[in-house]
């Protein structure tokens, strides 16, 4: 039975706080595409986001060089963010697995609406942490009170004062 996993706030925060560099597969150069929104937001929050987009390879998105494939990225990255159709998730995971040691990959993150249980199982079997059917931008915003600013239900309830670093 394939049921969508639920993730605790602590699990998601652990990923968002430990990841520094994200390879975004399917990053778009068009300003009003969802992947462009997510890339721009994550960069503002301090993440390095490296775009992977075959037809755009060699070009730039938000000042970052675009690569055709994960293997082409000449530096380490902690997380692969899959901004492609659900069917494309498995081949992307299969491309990532041989690169785990070399690139230091720890997390496979499938975007909101990207659901592929086979890909998730393959990634977990290879020792990767998997998040599926979520958006890192929305999760970051939700867990740092920013989603609430737009009138959304963050489902975060806490009487603790959050620390703000200067």
């Amino acid at each position: 039975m394939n049921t969508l996993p639920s993730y605790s706030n602590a699990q998601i925060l652990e990923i968002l706080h430990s990841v520094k560099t994200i390879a975004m597969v399917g990053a778009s150069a068009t300003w009003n595409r969802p992947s462009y929104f997510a890339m721009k937001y994550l960069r503002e929050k301090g993440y390095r986001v490296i775009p992977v987009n075959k037809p755009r390879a060699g070009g730039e998105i938000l000042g970052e060089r675009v690569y055709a494939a994960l293997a082409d990225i000449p530096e380490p990255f902690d997380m692969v963010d899959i901004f492609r159709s659900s069917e494309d998730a498995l081949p992307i995971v299969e491309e990532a697995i041989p690169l785990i040691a070399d690139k230091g990959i720890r997390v496979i993150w499938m975007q909101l609406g990207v659901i592929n249980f086979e890909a998730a199982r393959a990634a977990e079997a290879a020792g990767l942490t998997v998040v599926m059917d979520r958006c890192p931008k929305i999760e970051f915003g939700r867990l740092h009170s920013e989603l609430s600013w737009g009138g959304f239900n963050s489902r975060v309830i806490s009487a603790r004062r959050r620390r703000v670093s200067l």
Partner: protein
Amino acid sequence: MGRKPEDRYGFETRMIHAGSQPEPVTGARQTPIYQTTAYAFHDADHAASLFNLQTFGFIYSRLTNPTVAVLEERIASLEGARGATCCASGHAAQVLAFFVFMEPGDEFIASDKLYGGSITQFGKTFKKFDWRVHFVDMDEPEAVRRALTPKTKAIFAESLANPGGVVSDIEALAAIAREAGIPLIIDNTLATPYLCQPIDWGADIIIHSTTKFLSGNGTSMGGAVIDSGLFDWGQNDKFGGLTQPEPAYHGLTFYETFGDMAFTTHAHAVGLRDLGPAMAPQNAFYTLLGIETLSLRMDRHCQNAEIVARFLDDHEAVAWVSFAGLPSSPYHALAKKYLSGPGSVFSFGIKGGFEAGVRLVESCELFSHLANLGDARSLILHPASTTHRQLTEEQRIAAGAGPEVIRLSIGLETADDLLADLDQALARSQSPETPAAR
């Protein structure tokens, strides 16, 4: 109250905490009133991200304000919804809700037993946008199905209607809406999320006049449009406002970009931005204070209302009582199904018609004669001479606001004092020669 599996905390906890963590910079525990019109940008790129809706944040209080946002999240949490958009009044909420997806020439179906102000807004003022309403007697849900046309974009009803003590069959209406591929909009003002959870029964959008029980003291105008986040706007080609590139945002497609947040994002970024009915932060603050005690107040409102309704039901000057809490009410079974309490707004018919009605409201000492409801104070109104006077006689009767109808909103006073006041006023109402006390 049933607890949704994803909500770790109960209704009362969320009444107090949802949306309001301690303010992180100062530690302020109560929600601060952000009495500011605008918000500083870090730099030009940050401003661009905000204007393009690429990041979360504040630009101008016509769109969003931190105090109002706390109220939005709190109401969304209490309704078990994805998001909420607060605005200047319940009427503004209705315009905002329809503005997200209605085009000129589009239609919607509404109950003929709505609050009179809604009937006028939908039937008269909405005409100027070329939005066309069909009023239907929803006691027979099949009548709604018969009224559907290819241009029908929504079904609208009140969970508990004002002023008639009428309860809508939300589940049946939701089934018809689902089949037609259109959203069901439920005005949950009189029931409040404490007594009724319309989304659990299939409603897609909820409307509130927060002026009423949510604020609870008759101090603050406000409205809210709440989106369940569950309606699939892309299932057909009826909702181009969300599924087609939006010219007011350089061709951004809201549903594709924001998914289950599209409706609420559109209601702020297009609706509030361009129609302008922002909620004042001070009003959001008072409403937040009100919501902190919602469950306690609603329990007492319902308890007092049951005592008053039973008293009136036995009173010789009273022809009938329409209160869903009475077993004799035709809506009693629906009330048992959908409401955890009957509410405290209901109507009754006074013997002696229009004249007796006017004498009654003018003879009360403790009940306030005014056109509001959901106040800590008990309120009395003669709809035919006030809120429903713009309607035709036929519409007034359909809406449960005929010449003999009196509407009560039972407050939190000592129940015996309410009975004594009504008793003396009813006595005066029946004797034309007795002048009302001055």
